[in-house]
């Protein structure tokens, strides 16, 4: 089990991570999610031993490894750019860690076969790595990291270099492989989908600090900070008064978080708000419908996204049809996934 306690990484005067706490249980896949510049890569490098920590401790099963050089940590890392050894073939890359550990060559070959099978590259042993496709290179990098059976696997933006169409597929594949290896895994990414698809738990990092951690669902519902909420897709923001522990939104009441008083910050994602042309309303607008004017609108194929000016403020909502600019629309809300924070 990896435990990171109060780890800070400094570059000169710049604080990259600030007293970060984090844990990865055996067999767990944990994601650190944050925008670029949030300190997630510095954190990963500190865990790997590639970056000295200014304060804090990194332990594995209660043993302090903070000062252990990278080659004695027994942690594997897969870089975003793969960093394959291009002067070696696939086999040479995959067996590198085994050679460093002095594993006998027969055992090396057996393990290489096993791991190449796992990543679906059986028979690729003697291919040059620079002749492989991006996806194949990634699998070689994964096999190379996993071959010596590291205690911890670290992934740096594992799907960033992959085409959008192939992402879901590769994410699922990656998850299956990592699960099959049973290795504790720490991944850092700025991509929500990547984190949510791959990880059991998600930690949100912002300006070097942990603002929230939990399961994907928990983090999605309560991102921990306004910045994190925006990062997690909130596009409509309302600041409303709190009365008797609840907030009355135009669409109905929601419970206010403890300590949110006198005002609360309400965040909604485009999918939480739906609009339709006001003319199509069968009944006159009731109390849970907000009327507004379309300012701009984007066609998105199966739906449209519109920026709507309403009395309560600007809203970003989805609708089935694309309305003309200036049209009057009625906006309804699904408050199931609303984000509420102290203002």
């Amino acid at each position: 089990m990896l435990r990171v306690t109060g780890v800070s990484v400094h570059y000169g005067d710049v604080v990259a991570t600030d007293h970060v706490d984090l844990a990865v249980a055996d067999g767990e896949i944990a994601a650190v999610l944050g925008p670029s510049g949030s300190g997630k890569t510095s954190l990963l490098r500190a865990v790997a031993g590639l970056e000295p920590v200014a304060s804090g401790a990194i332990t594995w099963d209660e043993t302090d490894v903070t000062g252990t050089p990278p080659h004695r940590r027994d942690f594997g890392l897969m870089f975003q750019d793969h960093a394959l050894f291009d002067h070696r073939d696939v086999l040479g890359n995959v067996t590198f860690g085994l050679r460093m550990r002095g594993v006998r060559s027969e055992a090396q070959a057996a393990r290489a076969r096993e791991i190449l099978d796992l990543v679906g590259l059986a028979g690729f042993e003697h291919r040059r790595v620079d002749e492989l496709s991006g996806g194949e290179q990634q699998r070689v990098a994964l096999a190379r990291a996993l071959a010596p059976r590291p205690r911890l696997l670290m992934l740096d933006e594992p799907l960033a270099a992959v085409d959008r169409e192939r992402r879901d597929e590769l994410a699922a594949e990656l998850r299956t492989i990592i699960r099959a290896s049973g290795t504790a895994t720490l991944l850092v990414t700025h991509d929500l989908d990547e984190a949510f698809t791959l990880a059991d738990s998600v930690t949100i990092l912002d300006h070097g600090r942990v603002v929230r951690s939990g399961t994907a669902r928990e983090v999605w519902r309560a991102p921990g900070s306004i910045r994190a909420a925006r990062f997690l897709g909130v596009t409509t923001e309302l600041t409303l008064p709190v009365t008797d522990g609840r907030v009355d939104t135009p669409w109905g009441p929601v419970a206010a978080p403890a300590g949110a008083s006198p005002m609360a910050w309400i965040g909604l994602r485009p999918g939480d708000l739906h609009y339709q042309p006001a003319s199509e309303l069968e009944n006159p607008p009731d109390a849970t419908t907000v009327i507004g004017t379309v300012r701009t609108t984007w066609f998105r194929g199966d739906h449209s996204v519109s920026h709507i000016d309403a009395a309560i403020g600007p809203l970003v909502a989805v609708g089935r049809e694309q309305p003309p600019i200036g049209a009057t629309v009625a906006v309804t809300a699904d408050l199931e996934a609303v984000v509420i924070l102290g203002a």
Partner: protein
Amino acid sequence: MSSRRFGRFGSGLLFVVPLAFLAVFFVWPVGAILARGLFAHGSLDLGAIGDAVRDPAIRHVAWFTVWQATLSTLATLAIALAATAVLSRYQFVGRGLVIAGLTMPFVLPTVVVATAFRGLGVDGSLTAILLAHAFFNVAVVVRVVGAAWVGLDPRTVDAARTLGAGPGRTFTAVTLPALRPAIAAAASIVFLFCFTSFGVILILGGPRFATLETEIYRATAQLLDLRTAAALSVIQLVAVAIVLVVAGRAAGRSRRVSRTARTGPRMTGARTRAGAVLASALAAVLVGWPLLALVRRSFAHGAAGYSNLARTPLGASSSGFHALGTSVEIAIVAATLATGLGLALATAITRPRVRRDGNRRPRLAVRMTESLAVLPLGVSAVTVGFGFLIVFDTPPLALRTSWWIIPIAHALVALPFVVRATVPTLRAVDPHQREVAALLGATPARVWREVDARIAARAAVVAAGFAFASSLGEFGATLFIVRPETTTAPVAIFRFLSRPGATNVDQAMALATLLAALTGIVALVGERLTARRTTV
């Protein structure tokens, strides 16, 4: 933790050994020259320099030094830019051969080139000096400007054309400004080489033409006037320092250009043939003609020139063949020394180090080492030779009579080239590869062996080849410290040329031909190895 400490100790050694070498064999001799030129009887005394500056003969020499270097640079640029324009823009059969032909002279010994131009019978004239300088330095311009030109983003030219600029306008408004830093850098290097040119002037200048370099030699070897020699050396050092600062500025700006991806020449079609003819003709006339003349002249009296090389001439202590053998022996030792020290320095300079405070700028020591390592590049060989002469003549290090002093001097002259050739290669190593190797369990030493060494190996071979060729041709420093039994081939050629009689000229031509062939082969092997890496 213990291996970490060992790693630090090891990387310390990488610094200490080469730095000690530079301190003893570079800083000390140059310091001694400065001391002699600037101090007398323990106090600052600019009398010697003042005398030199006031001497009309020396003023004339200094003026000629600057003047000929300027003219040589202009002549080189005129020829080389025409060739580069063709080679960078047109792809044609034999393009590689023309590039090889034009760049090969750079490694040829100065004495060989001077001898070749003497074979043309144009010696004793300014034209001969300018042509010989162009012969050498066209390579510098073709390499430096050619790399920048080929690396230019062709889309900027396309953009200019779509914005309404004609071909001529596009060239003057887009291409030329982009190349200006590279041209300035190349011009400064050429100027520096011509300014410190020694062998060419000594052999081709005859009694009429002298530069600061040849004057230092004359004052030392013929007039035994070390005071004037030291004063001239100080003047020379100051002048070189000024040129280096200017060159450094120009090169610093050109670095951005050369970083862009190489795209290779892309034009073909009607004008290609004209361009190909022009470039080939230039290469043939400038490079082929003098070399052919040298070979032809070496057979002027049948094979007599060659067969006589086996004999020890009257008044000399060894034969021409013996000198060639000595040169090869010295070159092997010098190349080994230069490559070993250069590689250690390059590794120490480029070694990734993370400081406790996370600051990633290289330490002052690293930056100073890099500057110190390339400094001998600017200091002329004559200065090195003169410095060796005055420092190692007496204890504590009376190396004057030692065989080792010559390979050491040659290694010193080649060291900056080795460092310059290997540092960019080692810098280009993806740091992620080192980190991955470490995380996979490789110790720091193993990381170096598995990642860096493989990449450095080829650069080291190329650098060793260059150091070998440079030692084979080294003349300026050697002439000061050579002893009869350590006569090298270039010195032997010079001695043959200084003696009267056709027999001696035949032998000079024959030995120069052999030396040219030997360095040519070494350069060709080196070229092959680099070509495979860059695959243009």
